C-alpha cells in the first residue's frame, strides 16, 4: 500500500503527462506551490475552513475539470463529497467562485464560460484515487495506485469522449 502523499505525487506527475493542466489542490500535509481550492457555501459564516469543502487535486483539459479526492484506502466519504459538489448548483457556484477568488484559471491562461459550469455538471469529472480497497461507482473514474503502477477504472456511465482524455 502506498501513502496518500505518494498517491498525490504520482497523480501530480502522471496526469500532466496525459495533457491535464494542474489547477490547484491541497497536499495531504505541508505546502505545495498551487492554489488551494476551497469551496464555501454562499452564507458561509463559520470561522476559517469549518464547513467548507477542499478539493485534493484539480485538473483541466479540453473544457473538462477533473475533481480528484485521494485516500490511502477507499473511503465512501470521498464519493459523497464529490457527488455533493458536482450535483448541486449551490456547490458548483462555490466551485467557480473559489477558482475566481484565487485567479487559478487566469494563472494558467484558461478562460471558461463560468455559467455553463454552474448550470450543469456535464463537464465536471468526478474521480477518486486510493491504494487499497474496492469500489464501483458508475459516474466515477477510479485511480488505483500502487508502487510504480497506476490503474484506471472507468465507471459504466463514463462517456467515450471523456475516456479518450486519459
Amino acid at each position: 500500500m502506498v501513502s496518500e502523499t505518494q498517491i498525490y505525487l504520482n497523480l501530480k506527475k502522471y496526469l500532466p503527462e496525459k495533457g491535464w493542466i494542474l489547477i490547484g489542490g491541497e497536499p495531504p500535509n505541508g505546502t505545495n506551490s498551487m492554489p488551494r481550492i476551497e469551496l464555501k457555501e454562499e452564507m458561509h459564516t463559520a470561522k476559517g475552513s469549518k464547513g467548507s469543502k477542499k478539493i485534493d487535486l484539480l485538473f483541466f483539459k479540453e473544457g473538462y475539470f477533473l475533481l480528484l479526492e485521494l485516500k490511502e484506502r477507499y473511503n465512501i466519504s470521498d464519493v459523497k463529497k464529490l457527488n455533493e459538489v458536482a450535483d448541486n448548483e449551490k456547490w458548483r457556484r462555490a466551485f467557480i467562485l473559489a477558482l475566481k477568488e484565487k485567479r487559478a484559471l487566469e494563472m494558467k491562461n484558461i478562460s471558461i464560460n463560468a455559467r455553463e459550469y454552474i448550470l450543469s455538471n456535464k463537464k465536471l469529472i468526478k474521480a477518486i484515487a486510493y491504494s487499497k480497497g474496492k469500489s464501483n461507482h458508475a459516474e466515477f473514474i477510479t485511480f488505483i495506485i500502487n508502487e510504480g503502477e497506476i490503474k484506471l477504472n472507468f465507471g459504466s456511465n463514463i462517456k467515450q469522449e471523456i475516456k479518450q482524455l486519459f
Partner: protein
Amino acid sequence: MKIKIYCDALQEGEWFKNLSPSFKNSELLEINNRGRNPPIIEKLIEYDRPDIILVIDGEVKLALEKTEEVPTGHNVGQRFARIVKSAELRIPFIYFCPFVAMKHGKYANKCFINARLFTAIENMSKIHNVTILVMNWITDDNYELIRGGREDTELKLLMSDLLANNFSFKKSKIVKNILNKMSSEKVDRIKMHPSYEEPPNTVKIINTFSFVSDLKKRFGDFKISPRFMKNNETIFYILGMTPENCRREDPYTGTQLVYDYYWCRTGAKTNERKRNLVLNIPMVTKKRWLEANPNETHKKRHLYYSIPDMLILKDGIIITENLNNKQRRLMRWYQKLKST
C-alpha cells in the same frame, strides 16, 4: 559530498531538491515521529518540526519552513517554536513566507506580515549568534502568490551561493541582501502600523512586585525565586482559552516565544530574562488545565511548562521553575533507584 534532505512532507522535499542541481542525487527522507530519527534530527524537532532539514556529510547545514500563510494574527507564532529550537542549536533557519498576500473569504483583503516577527527574530538571532532569514514568497499585482517556480528564484541563488561558500552564511552577499530586505520590510510595516512596536492587546507589561502581591492576596502565599522578583517588569500574556477548547497547542506555544524574544529574553536560557514571562488563562481551572495539557515531553504542550515562568489559572498558579525542579528531583530519584 553526501547530501540528505529530511522533509516533513515528500512534496516539500522534492521542491527543495529542485532548488539546486547539487541536490539532484541527494537522499530524500521523511522526518519520522519523535524517537525514530537520527539524534541530530531528534534534537531539532524537539519543539516542533520544520519542513526541511538539510544534512551534508552528517552535519545539519540549515532548516527551512515554507508556508503560503502570511505571518499575521494566529499565524505569527504558529511556526515560531521550530525556529527557536534551530536557533538554540545554532543551526541557520530560512522562513519562506509571503510578506503580503491576499486573504480570501468574506473579508477578503491584502494581509501584511506582522512586524513583531522581525524584531523577535532579530533578537533571537543576536542572542544565539545564528542567521535566521525571513524570505518573501512574492506575489503578483493582485497580491496572489506567484507559483510555478518563479517564486523560488532568490532561494535558488541563495542555495548556489551557500554551496559555493561551504554554507558560511556570514560570507554570503545574498544573505546580507536578504537581511537588508527584512530590515526595510520591518521599517515599512511599523510606518504603516506604529502599534507593532507596542505589545498587542493580549499582552501587558506589568510591575512584578504589585503583580506578586496581588497574586498572594488571591491565592495565598507561595514560593517564588529571587530571579523572578529581581525583574521589575513582567510580561503578562492573556490566553483566551475556554475549558472546552483548552487542549490546544497552536498558536500559543509558539506565540509565547515571540513575546519572550521580543520583550523578555537576554540570553540563551529561559532564566536569562530582563522581564518575566507569565501566561494568564483566566477561564480555565488548574484541574482542567492539567487534565487537558499534561506536561508531555514528546508533545508541543511541554512548552507551556518549559518556557514561561508562571501560568495563572482561574483558581491557582503553576510556577514552572518549581515544577521543573521537582521533576528533576524525581528523575534523579528514579535513576538512582534503577541503578541500585
